[in-house]
C-alpha cells in the first residue's frame, strides 16, 4: 500500500473530481462559512438556494487538493478556506449571490462564548414567567426584574452586552430564557471567484434603496431635461404643452391681454387686488 500512499482512495478521488468539475462548470466558485449553523437550518438554507446555487460540503483537504490540481488564478481560493468552509457554485454574479446569502440569515439564540454582533438590549415590560427564582437569576445578570401584579416584569430597558463583547454562559442562558436571539446565523460568503476576478464580501453589499432612488432621480432628470430643453417625447410633450400654456396665461394676466380664455383670470386678479386695498381702507 505504501507506494500508493500519495494516491487518494476512490471516494476521495471522486470528491476532488466533482469539485474540479463544478468549478469549471459554474461561472462563480465561492467559499461560505457554515460556522454555527445547526443541521436542520442548513437543510432549509440548501433548499432555499436550490435552482440558483449549489452548496457542496466536503473536507478541507479535498478542497485544497482540487484547487491545487486546477491551478491558475482560481487556486488562490484555498487561502480563504477555514475549518467551517463549504463550496458554493452559481452562475449568478457575486453581488446577487451575496444578496441571496444575506437573505438566508436568521436570528438565533446565543451560545456561551459567542461575540455579540450588536448591542444586546433587554426591553422593559412583562415577561411570561410566573414569580419564582427566575427573578434572582435575572437580577444576577444585571437585569432589573421585579414582581408586579403576580408577574415577573422588567422595569426598564437595559443593554446587557455591548457589541463585540463575549456572551458568557450565564448571560446566554438568561437571553435564551427571555427568547432573545442576538446571533445572525447563515451562510456567510468568504470569497467568490467570478469570471476571473476575486470578490471580497465587504465589497458586495448593495443598497437597493439607493439604486431605486437613483433610478427615480435619473428619470426625473431626463424628464426635466426634455421639458426644459423643449425636446418633446411622447412621455413629456403633454407637460411641455402645459408649460407653454401656463406661460401664455401668465403673460395674458400679467399684461392684461383681454382674451376670452383668460379674462376670468384677469377679473380674478383685479378682484383680489381690490379686496386687498379694501382691507386696508375699511
Amino acid at each position, binding site marked *: 500500500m505504501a507506494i500508493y500512499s500519495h494516491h487518494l482512495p476512490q471516494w476521495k478521488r471522486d470528491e476532488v473530481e466533482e469539485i474540479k468539475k463544478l468549478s469549471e462548470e459554474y461561472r462563480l466558485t465561492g467559499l461560505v462559512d457554515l460556522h454555527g449553523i445547526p443541521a436542520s437550518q442548513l437543510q432549509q438554507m440548501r433548499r432555499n438556494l436550490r435552482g440558483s446555487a449549489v452548496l457542496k460540503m466536503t473536507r478541507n483537504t479535498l478542497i485544497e487538493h482540487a484547487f491545487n490540481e486546477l491551478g491558475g488564478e482560481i487556486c488562490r481560493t484555498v487561502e480563504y478556506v477555514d475549518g467551517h468552509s463549504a463550496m458554493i457554485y452559481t452562475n449568478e454574479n457575486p453581488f446577487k449571490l451575496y444578496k441571496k446569502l444575506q437573505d438566508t440569515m436568521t436570528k438565533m439564540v446565543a451560545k456561551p462564548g459567542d461575540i455579540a454582533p450588536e448591542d444586546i438590549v433587554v426591553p422593559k415590560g412583562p415577561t411570561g414567567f410566573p414569580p419564582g427564582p427566575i427573578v434572582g437569576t435575572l437580577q444576577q445578570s444585571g437585569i432589573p426584574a421585579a414582581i408586579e401584579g403576580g408577574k415577573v416584569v422588567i422595569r426598564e430597558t437595559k443593554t446587557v452586552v455591548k457589541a463585540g463583547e463575549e456572551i458568557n454562559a450565564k448571560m446566554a442562558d438568561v437571553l435564551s430564557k427571555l427568547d432573545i436571539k442576538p446571533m445572525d446565523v447563515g451562510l456567510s460568503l468568504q470569497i467568490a471567484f467570478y469570471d476571473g476576478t476575486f470578490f471580497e464580501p465587504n465589497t458586495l453589499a448593495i443598497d437597493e434603496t439607493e439604486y431605486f432612488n437613483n433610478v427615480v432621480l435619473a428619470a426625473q432628470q431626463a424628464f426635466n431635461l426634455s421639458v426644459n430643453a423643449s425636446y418633446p417625447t411622447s412621455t413629456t410633450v403633454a407637460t411641455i404643452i402645459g408649460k407653454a400654456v401656463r406661460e401664455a396665461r401668465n403673460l395674458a394676466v400679467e399684461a*392684461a*391681454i*383681454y*382674451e*376670452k380664455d*383668460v*379674462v*376670468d383670470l*384677469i*377679473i*380674478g*386678479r*383685479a*378682484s*383680489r*387686488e*381690490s*379686496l386687498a386695498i379694501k382691507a386696508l381702507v375699511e
Partner: protein
Amino acid sequence: MEYIYAALVLHSAGKEINEDAVTKVMTAAGIAVDDSRVKALIAALDGVDIAEAIEKSAVAAVAAAPAAA
C-alpha cells in the same frame, strides 16, 4: 389693468358694460383710451358671468387660506 377696473366699476354699479361706457369712464379718469383694447375687452367679456368670476376668485383665495393653516 385699467380697462378691467373700468369694467368692474360699471359692473359693481349694475351698469351695462359696453365700449361706450368703458371709454367714458376711462376718459373721465384722464386716460388716453386705446379703442382696440376696449373692443378686445368687451369681446372677451361677452358671455362671461363677471359676478361668478369674482366669486370664484374669492372662493379660491379662501379655500387656499384655511388649507394653508
